[in-house]
């Protein structure tokens, strides 16, 4: 085996080992605190052992860089935290809940580290000023100038790119989300209704229709980008042949289009609609197949038309499936940087295809406006959170079909 592969495997093993090590200590901590909190030795033993253990771990992790003052601070903070926790376990914690807590706690700590820490750091960045000229001082001294709400103000008043404003980006993002999700649902519903019939080769059709969703998005998007090239793309070649075959189409205004440079937003939308339909189709098909046939049979006996069956049986019973799928689709489409970035790339003159998240990405990583981007990201998060909450409230998506 290649030595580099062996060393990589060892690194993976070390990572697993590290996670196991942390898990072991979390479980040991909870076990002792749940089971021995009533013992007379609990307080003195824990108040001595836990802060010392934390200090030891920090010393091993940081090494000689840790000075005496920092060590004392760490010990005191750990002592304070352990005092509060020990009191909680002694007087409030229910021993019967020990197992559930022990089972969920490693996952909870992992999530807290992966989500809470970056979020807190992002808030910190948004109120400070990290950019090219302050990076060096920050990495050497840890100091960043505090700028209050300046970056939040800039988000609404300064373009994250060259000229496009936050409000233009917001309007375009909402339009992008609505159009895409509408066509995802419409296309997905249409195809799912077709596939829900007893037709020959249904499995093959289903497989073919899922391909755009199943293949890596980068490959799918770049392939589609090629098809929209003005000279050599499939779309314009077909337009050219149609116009050659039916010259009256030219008189009606049909001609080859520079899709990528003149209509980048429309091109991105078409590509994303194509990419998103299969997911919605699979979800809706699952929902359709869970509707009992007896409902339709009863409706047929009552003389209901196909439309009436669809309106009064299919749609209401699809709601529990559709509402979360639309919520997910909305969030994914709102945050879909891949299609925009891969279709327009770094190319010039295509600022009118950017949506909030693609502008955010470029502001952070192309223009190095780190703190501005942190504030921008928080604003986008709050917007998306509000939109999702409103949608769930008005669509009653969390209610069951029979409520």
């Amino acid at each position: 085996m290649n030595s580099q592969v062996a060393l990589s495997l060892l690194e993976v093993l070390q990572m697993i080992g590290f996670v196991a090590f942390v898990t072991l200590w979390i479980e040991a901590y909870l076990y002792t605190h749940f089971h021995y909190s009533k013992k007379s030795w609990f307080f003195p033993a824990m108040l001595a052992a836990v802060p010392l253990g934390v200090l030891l771990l920090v010393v091993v992790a940081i090494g000689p860089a840790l000075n005496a003052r920092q060590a004392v601070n760490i010990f005191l903070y750990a002592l304070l935290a352990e005092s509060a926790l020990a009191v909680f376990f002694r007087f409030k914690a229910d021993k019967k809940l020990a197992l559930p807590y022990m089972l969920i706690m490693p996952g909870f700590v992992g999530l807290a580290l992966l989500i809470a820490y970056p979020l807190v750091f992002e808030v910190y960045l948004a109120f400070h000023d990290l950019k090219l000229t302050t990076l060096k001082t920050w990495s050497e001294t840890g100091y960043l100038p505090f700028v209050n709400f300046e970056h939040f103000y800039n988000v609404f008043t300064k373009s994250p790119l060259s000229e496009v404003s936050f409000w233009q980006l917001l309007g375009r993002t909402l339009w992008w989300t609505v159009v895409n999700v509408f066509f995802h649902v419409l296309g997905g519903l249409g195809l799912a209704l077709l596939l829900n019939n007893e037709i020959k080769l249904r499995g093959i059709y289903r497989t073919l229709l899922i391909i755009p969703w199943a293949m890596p998005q980068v490959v799918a998007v770049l392939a589609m980008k090629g098809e929209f090239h003005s000279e050599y793309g499939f779309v314009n070649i077909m337009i050219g042949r149609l116009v050659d075959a039916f010259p009256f189409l030219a008189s009606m205004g049909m001609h080859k289009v520079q899709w990528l440079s003149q209509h980048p937003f429309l091109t991105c939308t078409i590509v994303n609609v194509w990419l998103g339909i299969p997911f919605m189709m699979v979800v809706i098909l699952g929902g359709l197949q869970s509707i009992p046939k007896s409902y339709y049979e009863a409706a047929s006996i009552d003389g209901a038309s196909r439309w009436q069956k669809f309106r009064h049986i299919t749609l209401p019973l699809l709601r529990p499936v559709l509402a979360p799928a639309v919520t997910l689709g909305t969030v994914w489409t709102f945050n879909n940087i891949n299609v925009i970035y891969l279709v327009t790339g770094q190319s010039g003159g295509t600022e009118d295809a950017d949506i909030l998240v693609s502008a955010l990405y470029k502001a952070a990583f192309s223009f190095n406006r780190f703190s501005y981007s942190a504030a921008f990201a928080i604003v986008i998060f709050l917007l998306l959170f509000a939109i999702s909450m409103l949608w769930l409230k008005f669509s009653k998506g969390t209610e069951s079909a029979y409520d």
Partner: protein
Amino acid sequence: MGKKIILQFCLALVAFSLAACLRPPGGKIDSNTLVVWEQEDGFIAPFLDSIFNNFKKLPGNEKVRIQRVHYHMEDLRQQFQTASIAGSPPDMIITPPDVAGVFAVSGFILPLNGLFDFSRYDEQALVPVTMDGKIWGVPSSMGNHLMLLYNKRLVKNIPQSTDELFKSCAELSRDKNLSYCMAYDMNEPFWLIPWLTAYGGWPLDGKKPALNTPAMLAAVKFYLNLRYERKLVPMECDYNCMDSLFKEEKVAFIINGDWSLADYKSRFGENLGVGRIPKLSETGRWPSPMFGGKDIMLSSKLRGEKLELAKRLTVFFTNDENQLRQARELYRIPAIKGMKNSPELRKDPLLRGSIEQQEVATPMPMATELRAFWDSGRHYLGMITQRKTTPEDGLKRMQADCEAKIQEMMR
């Protein structure tokens, strides 16, 4: 039974915890391992690996490991910044010098004065990595400059002026039925520089952008003329598009950099011609593309033994033998003083053409402000060439945006 399972689970946890403490034999993996990020094309990888392998075969280097990681140009810049902010950057990067200004200001790379003997290197090769008297990169090649490449199966001689180029293109259209004559990335400001210089302009005046100027206006109008009036270059043609068109012999000429020579040589063999971008007949001036090269930069996190190891690898990478090998295999101009004049290199028609173009090229200044020009220039040049705005309006907005970006960067 339940207790037994819990015991086994605990033993497994302990075993994994012990695994976390494992270190490879020797226990000094960090000081013997160098992580190198590069942004070369795929066909360059064997050359890089062979240099690294030869380095590892030197006495005393038996335990040295070199991890080469490839990124695309923009990805390397972004990833290196992100990794540096996170505190775990690679030890070395091999990249064109246009990122040096940003990395130096951010404190991501080491100033190298006193660490290397820079008197070995061509002074021109050091210009793109020198700022305020400090040198931030070791040049591994000199160039990265644009030149005119042509397919000898389609055209016999390289045009000496734009008038000759247009004449040649008319003949190609008539005799060979080519839809387009020439391809190059018109949206990328790097490709505008040769024509801008032919009109007597330059994107920076000291540290200020000089974009709303008569020279710039003339250069972008020349661009529009090539695309819309003469129809010599295809619409919507980015780098991949122009590369494909040339390789598929759908165009006779391409303006591309020295990084592409080895690839085209392997495809066209003796039918590949290289020379200077033709003189602009309108002004009588020769275009002067920007040149830099490839440079090795060291992370500012490097210390002690590892820094010494990185220094040794850098010196090995740029020694005379490897520089000559690089010139022979990749057609890159050596960065060592005087080496480009060796008769062996001058005899090769590709290298000779590349060197002739480089000698009239202008070194890229190591200015952080240039970053703002690339970003603003790309956007507004795209707008102008797509006729979303007039050249006059586009340049006015480009100037204002570039100034705003510099102010934002430096405030």
